[in-house]
């Protein structure tokens, strides 16, 4: 067992990096949305994403992060903060040996 250290392991998912990935995918799927409008308290619908866009965004983010997670887990996330938290958690679970 590896003892815990004060500095994070390089593989530990960085929430900020996850949020940047979410932002990048959103601005790809919704080209008219400027990156600075993508904030944690907003919902995808607030940014003008219709149901197909929301599917494409979740699929795109999972793919970009190399995650094989059920889509159903994302049905109940209230905003982008919650989506980022869930993705970060999934990455942590995935990175646990």
């Amino acid at each position: 067992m590896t003892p815990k250290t004060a500095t994070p392991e390089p593989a530990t998912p960085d929430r900020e990096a996850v949020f940047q990935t979410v932002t990048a995918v959103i601005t790809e799927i919704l080209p008219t949305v400027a990156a600075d409008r993508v904030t944690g308290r907003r919902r995808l619908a607030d940014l003008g994403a219709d149901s197909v866009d929301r599917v494409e965004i979740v699929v795109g983010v999972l793919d970009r992060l190399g995650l094989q997670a059920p889509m159903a887990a994302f049905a109940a996330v209230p905003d982008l903060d919650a989506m980022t938290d869930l993705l970060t958690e999934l990455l942590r679970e995935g990175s646990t040996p």
Partner: protein
Amino acid sequence: MTETVGIEALNVYCGTAGITVPTLFAARGLDPARMANLMMTARSVALPCEDPVTHAVNAARPLLQAIGPEAAARIETLVTSTESGIDYSKSVASYVHEHLGLSPRCRTVEVKQACYAATAALQLGAGYLASGVSPGAKVLVIATDVALVDQDAHYTEPAMGTGAAAVLLSTEPQVLTLDLGAFGLHSFQTLDSARPGPTFDIADSDRSLFAYLDCLSNSFRAYTERVEGADFAETFDYLAFHTPFAGMVRAAHRKMTRDFAKDRLAAVDDDFATRVAPSLVYPAMVGNLCSGSVYLALASLLDNGDVADGARVGMYSYGSGCAAEFFSGVADADSAAAVRRMRIQEQLDARVDLDFAEYDALLQENRRCLVPEPDRRIEVDAYRPILDRYGLQRDLLVYTGTKDYGRTYEWATAGDGRNPWPTA
């Protein structure tokens, strides 16, 4: 045990009227930018003198006329599949059995699992036929539903259809020979959409679309565990999926390519156009047929694709709640000819193009369709101006009301007599 079982005949009924999606978007003040992802052109609209029983009979009757009375007499199981039930006890099938004039030596039953149930009935029926316990028997599965949506459904309103698909199963399949034993299942409990009462639906669109996609991947994975060497990109010449709206199927195909054929992602649009788009022609003109949706997609594919040299079709059926199945079958030139005889494109083109005022006037009455009322009289003549404008002349069963809770029906004629259908 017989090895050859499948769909002998297939027909749909998608109403006598419809409204175009641009007309509905304009009248409801919906954002026209969203039409691109919806990929829908029109939705079918029922008349208040129609219900799940009339839809079912109007889909199946031309099919029975085509096979003739002797063959029809071999139908020994009638299953109606619907999420538009008319009674807690009495099935839609009981009325349908009467108005199709089926043999009394016939099981009648109704099944329910949102948009999936017809596929469950098809698979159970196919297994029964394959068992050989009743040689020469036929099973008639009719998926039939009505829509209850109005402006409160927002972008779902333009995507909801109405109508029925009649699927005749036998050991002499002309339309689709099922790959017996080749299927994958995925079901779990979720409240993504439901119809808690006779006048309204509840729906959580993200929960539903995400469950549809999870079930698609998981049921296909289960299929590959049963079918050695099955490959999403290579095994199926065509794909026909349950179609809540055509844009959803495009998104599903893209996700499946990403999940199971990532090296083909660069050509995903071409693959969609080749293998999927033929199945979406009719669904895009009709809206979500609910229980019959995947069979409308199959009819669309057989009329608009090229199966002359033999083609394997991958089919995906999903019903909220939820239950899903990926299965497959083989079609050929006879399949295309059998479906073409039903003149489905002409039936759809014959629908009356409603303006918004006509459409809006029908909505409130249509919402009473499933409400149990002891006595009600529906004046069919009130809808004569629409029925007369239907572009084909045909007999239709119409719903005339209730008497002591019993539903009453009669035969009427649609069209102005200048364009008879079906032909003798």
